[in-house]
């Protein structure tokens, strides 16, 4: 069955065709098409008849009560104290410092070499990312002539989320676990394929193309051992590193598995 045939059958089932002649002829031409049409129609009508559900008033009240009770008990809004203002500008200052140093070196050596340029640029990007981890806004990194573009893109991410020191400590501890192979992983069991697909989807949403998954974690109270507290709002995460990079040298990107957003990069 060709894609166009499937599209035609789906359009007929969903009643999207102004002129159904071609679709009707198609399903009449082959028992396989006819069977496909009937199964699609059966499922579509069953689902359409089900229709969207609504909360009852009791459920709605319970939802609002429980959400606000939970939020107030944790005082989430008040708990998230932003990093000091100078943390935001630290990566920019560090980047400028390196650029100024680079210009001085180039001037002294009468033009400098490409290797020096690349090394300095890579350092700039790395410095920017460290600042980004603290919740700072980073300037766009200098172009790297196509060298490891994924890493550069990752390091230039703007982490607008204001992370607390506790958040940073938690993800640093998780990164250490990942590096030592001690990360709590999902028990995929028979859902392995589905979970893998979900993780891949999340990596794509976080624009981490060219990265490979090296672990996934689900925060629990047990993680508190060793003195690192689990943040109240920590969600399951997936950890990924750039492909073909040694784990000890690679930045580890953490992606929230519920929001599919990049939340932290450990250098």
């Amino acid at each position, binding site marked *: 069955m060709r894609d166009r045939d*499937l*599209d035609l059958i*789906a359009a007929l*089932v969903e009643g999207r065709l102004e002129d159904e002649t071609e679709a009707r002829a198609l399903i009449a031409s082959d028992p396989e098409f006819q069977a*496909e049409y*009937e*199964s*699609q129609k*059966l*499922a*579509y009508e*069953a*689902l*359409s*008849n*089900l*229709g*969207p*559900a*609504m*909360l*009852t008033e009791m*459920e*709605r009240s*319970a*939802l*609002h009560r*429980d*959400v*606000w009770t*939970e*939020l107030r008990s944790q005082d*989430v*809004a*008040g708990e998230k104290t932003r990093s000091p203002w100078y943390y935001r500008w630290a990566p920019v200052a560090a980047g400028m410092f390196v650029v100024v140093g680079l210009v001085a070196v180039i001037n002294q050596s009468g033009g400098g070499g490409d290797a020096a340029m690349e090394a300095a640029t890579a350092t700039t990007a790395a410095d920017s990312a460290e600042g980004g981890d603290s919740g700072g806004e980073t300037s766009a990194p200098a172009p790297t002539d196509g060298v490891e573009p994924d890493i550069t893109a990752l390091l230039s991410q703007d982490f*607008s*989320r*204001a992370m607390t020191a506790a958040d940073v400590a938690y993800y640093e501890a998780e990164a250490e676990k990942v590096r030592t192979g001690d990360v709590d992983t999902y*028990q995929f*069991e028979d*859902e392995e*394929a*589905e979970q893998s*697909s*979900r993780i891949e*989807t*999340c990596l*794509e*949403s976080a624009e981490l193309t060219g990265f490979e998954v090296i672990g996934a974690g689900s925060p629990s109270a047990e993680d508190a051992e060793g003195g690192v507290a689990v943040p*109240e*709002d920590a*969600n*399951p995460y997936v950890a990924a590193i750039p492909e073909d990079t040694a784990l000890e040298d690679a930045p580890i990107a953490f992606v*929230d*598995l*519920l*929001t*599919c*957003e990049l*939340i932290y990069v450990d250098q």
Partner: protein
Amino acid sequence: MTTAAQDQELLARVVEGDHEAFNQIMRHHEDRVFSVCLRIMGNREQALDATQETFLTAFRKADQFKGNSALGTWIYRIAVNTCYDQLRKQKRRRTDPIPGHLDPTDYSAQDEVDSAALRPEIVRALAALPQDFRSAIVLSDIEGMGLPEVADVLGVPVGTVKSRVFRGRRLLAQELGNQSV
């Protein structure tokens, strides 16, 4: 329907701790989030838990929202992922046999509102589908989202959604056929 600019403004207010802004977002999306969760989880109580968790996550992670998609799309993505997560946890917990009165397939134990909103044969058939197919047809055929919006929520290309919806319907029809035998 809120515009992207209104979404951004509301989220900015939430990040600043404006509870009324978050209430507006909840009121606007709660029925649909609940509906998506109900169709994926197949049980009102679990769907309510997942809905609650979805909004708690949305509140806590409001500062992660980058505006690359509509706010609703972002919230429904959290809802679908939360449901997946809770289903996964349920499976991990189910090491012991489930008492009959708690078995989600024991539809006689569910209350009247369940039987009105959840047609047991469809719920069973939906529950038998792989999660990827289930979420695609729930968003498309029950919630009436267009393929591009479903693709945004699930974070996959439109072609993949189209394929999942088609194959999901085919499997659902098989399941419904098997039940009627």
